[in-house]
């Protein structure tokens, strides 16, 4: 009889996932409607306004020519880091608890990257010429400048977008096949195309396993390189406060930190509103909490190191930079960041805290607010205090910038809401694997 129970549960997984795709409640449409409306009014309208009038619509000024747009860009790239990277590491280390959450984590990666690229479009002065930064043969005979750290960025982010897109898709091929058999209409046609004719033969599983592992192996160094390269956009300059060797690991740790916090937020929402309580459990929150604690300590350490190297350099410009950061115009934001990203996560040391859902949600959101502040400060404090005191000037974001920041969040939510109705948002076959393989004669076997 044991076998009966287990096999019934196998079918339940298919039912649950297909239901999450097909059955759409009123709340979903309300949420999608709000998110779409906010995206339109807070993201696209201000952006079009800015395209029409010029970057002057934002608050940037002469020394601080980079502003919240670039901070958002780093933030979204950072948020993209935990999904695929964490998923790859956990895949290679055979962590069972990854299986329930990795699909949505990877989707987060993909959409964060998408939003990050949109932020670049918003950031640059003439986005209608952005294709000039792509390496393609053209009638002008001109190629991009591969010596530029921004060009490394273009190459790295394009590779990362391709890689993480392929990774999430490849892991989902068997699931597309499973939902293909259960759907009708346009969905059926879509899944027929996406599943490529998957049948689940031993040969197909074997090839998928190999390809998936190879992709995981390739994506880990890629993800680490992406955020290192983003940090080099800053660190390769000679601006005091940016010209630091610690920047690459600082950014990578920060990225994984904010990404993991983002996963906690998304897990909470999926669990609560998609009825995945059976699959996303306290265990996941406990493990993610431990990871967050580790990352917060690492992040704090690197932050202290940054202050130390600034002090140790002994140059007047670095001193001024330090003084400005700790006590200047943006100092309240700095201390807010320390509170949210270094002090508050110490609560995670308690197991009770890690396994309670609402406090974890609040903490994860606080961490991401702190991490956004960190990115903003990297841009704002350093650029407003450079070498020549004659051109020191503070920068305050304009209404357009704040609106686009809110709108980019709504854009991400919109994309994610569309995703959960098209992609199976938890992995059917890997959930089945964790449930235990059915045995002959009612043997009970748990893996």
């Amino acid at each position, binding site marked *: 009889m044991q076998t009966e129970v287990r096999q019934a549960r196998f079918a339940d997984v298919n039912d649950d996932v297909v239901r999450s795709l097909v059955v759409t409640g009123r709340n979903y449409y309300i949420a999608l409607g709000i998110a779409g409306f906010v995206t339109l009014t807070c993201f696209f309208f201000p952006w079009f306004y800015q395209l029409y009038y010029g970057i*002057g619509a934002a608050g940037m*000024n002469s020394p601080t020519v980079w502003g919240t747009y670039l901070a958002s860009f780093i933030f979204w790239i950072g948020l993209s880091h935990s999904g695929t990277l964490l998923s790859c590491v956990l895949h290679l280390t055979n962590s069972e608890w990854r299986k329930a959450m990795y699909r949505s984590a990877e989707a987060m990666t993909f959409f964060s990257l998408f939003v990050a690229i949109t932020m670049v479009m918003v950031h*640059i002065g*003439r986005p209608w010429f952005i294709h000039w930064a792509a390496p393609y043969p053209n009638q002008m005979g001109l190629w991009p*400048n591969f010596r*530029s750290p921004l060009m490394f960025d*273009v190459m790295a982010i394009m590779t990362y977008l391709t890689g993480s897109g392929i990774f999430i898709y490849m892991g989902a091929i068997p699931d597309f096949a499973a939902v293909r058999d259960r759907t009708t209409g346009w969905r059926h046609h879509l899944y027929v195309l996406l599943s490529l004719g998957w049948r689940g033969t031993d040969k197909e599983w074997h090839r998928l396993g190999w390809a998936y592992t190879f992709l995981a192996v390739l994506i880990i160094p890629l993800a680490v390189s992406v955020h290192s390269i983003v940090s080099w956009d800053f660190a390769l300059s*000679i601006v005091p406060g940016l010209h630091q060797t610690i920047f690459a690991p600082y950014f990578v740790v920060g990225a994984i930190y904010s990404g993991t916090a983002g996963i906690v937020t998304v897990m909470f929402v999926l669990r609560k509103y998609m009825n995945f309580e059976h699959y996303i459990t306290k265990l996941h929150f406990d493990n993610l909490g431990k990871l967050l604690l580790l990352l917060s300590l690492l992040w704090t350490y690197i932050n202290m190191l940054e202050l130390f190297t600034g002090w140790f350099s002994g140059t007047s410009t670095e001193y001024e930079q330090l003084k400005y950061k700790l006590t200047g115009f943006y100092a309240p934001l700095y201390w807010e960041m320390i509170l949210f990203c270094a002090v508050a996560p110490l609560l995670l040391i308690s197991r009770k805290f890690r396994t309670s859902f609402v406090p974890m949600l609040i903490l994860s959101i606080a961490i991401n607010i702190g991490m956004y502040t960190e990115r903003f400060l990297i841009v704002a404090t350093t650029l407003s205090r450079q070498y020549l005191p004659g051109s020191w000037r503070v920068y305050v974001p304009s209404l357009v910038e704040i609106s686009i920041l809110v709108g980019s969040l709504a854009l991400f939510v919109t994309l994610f809401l569309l995703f959960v109705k098209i992609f199976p948002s938890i992995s059917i076959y890997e959930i089945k694997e964790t449930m235990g393989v059915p045995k002959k004669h009612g043997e009970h076997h748990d893996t």
Partner: protein
Amino acid sequence: MNFIDRFMASWRKYRKPGYYEEFDYAWTMTVDLDRCTGCGACVTACQAENNIPIVGEKELGRGREMQWIRIERYWEGEYPNAKLSFIPMLCQQCDAAPCETVCPVSATYHNQDGLNAQIYNRCIGTRSCAVYCPYEVRYFNYYDHHWDAPLEQQLNPDVTVREKGVMEKCTFCVQRIRQAKDHAKDDGRRRVKDGEVQPACVQTCPSEALTFGDRKDANSVVAKKMNDPRAYHVLEETNTLPSVVYLKKVRANAD
């Protein structure tokens, strides 16, 4: 010569750092701070020569002024004993320019005259060059600027009017340098003579604090001034190898 030799020859050629040394000219400006009175005539001349827009009071207050050459003022001490010092700041046309390497589309590069050239048509407005520039002399077009009639009549036809989203900066009046080179070629001379070309600011300076010339020519005025013991570069520690040389102000009560 076989293929490998040719390959190695071009490899060596392209691997050589400081490619700019083979350029025709090395235009240099010297700023004698002892002579500078801070009158701001250079700023006005530059504005007129290079079609620099007047951004207006509001934008000036937001820190978006356009001055390819500006007079930086520094006050020392409190009011009764306040001491004022100033320094004209313009694009230093660095030989190891941080702004050049960072442009993803090569909109800024080192040209044959050793100038740090900015190609407005190619610029996509990432503004990273302005961040990388330690002298803060790159100016961004936050808006499309326009000139009320009849002011558009006085725009210089030799200089483009820049559109929004484009970075711009001092060019050492590259249009005048081009013209002088063309004249030199028409006259059958190979090189431009010293003093034949002057940017607008140098031409205007009433106290002759600014001089301009080719430092490759050892007899030029700038080459001589560069050897003055007062000569220094601004932010020399950043190792950008600027082409603008400042001559230190000599104060009576040197402290």
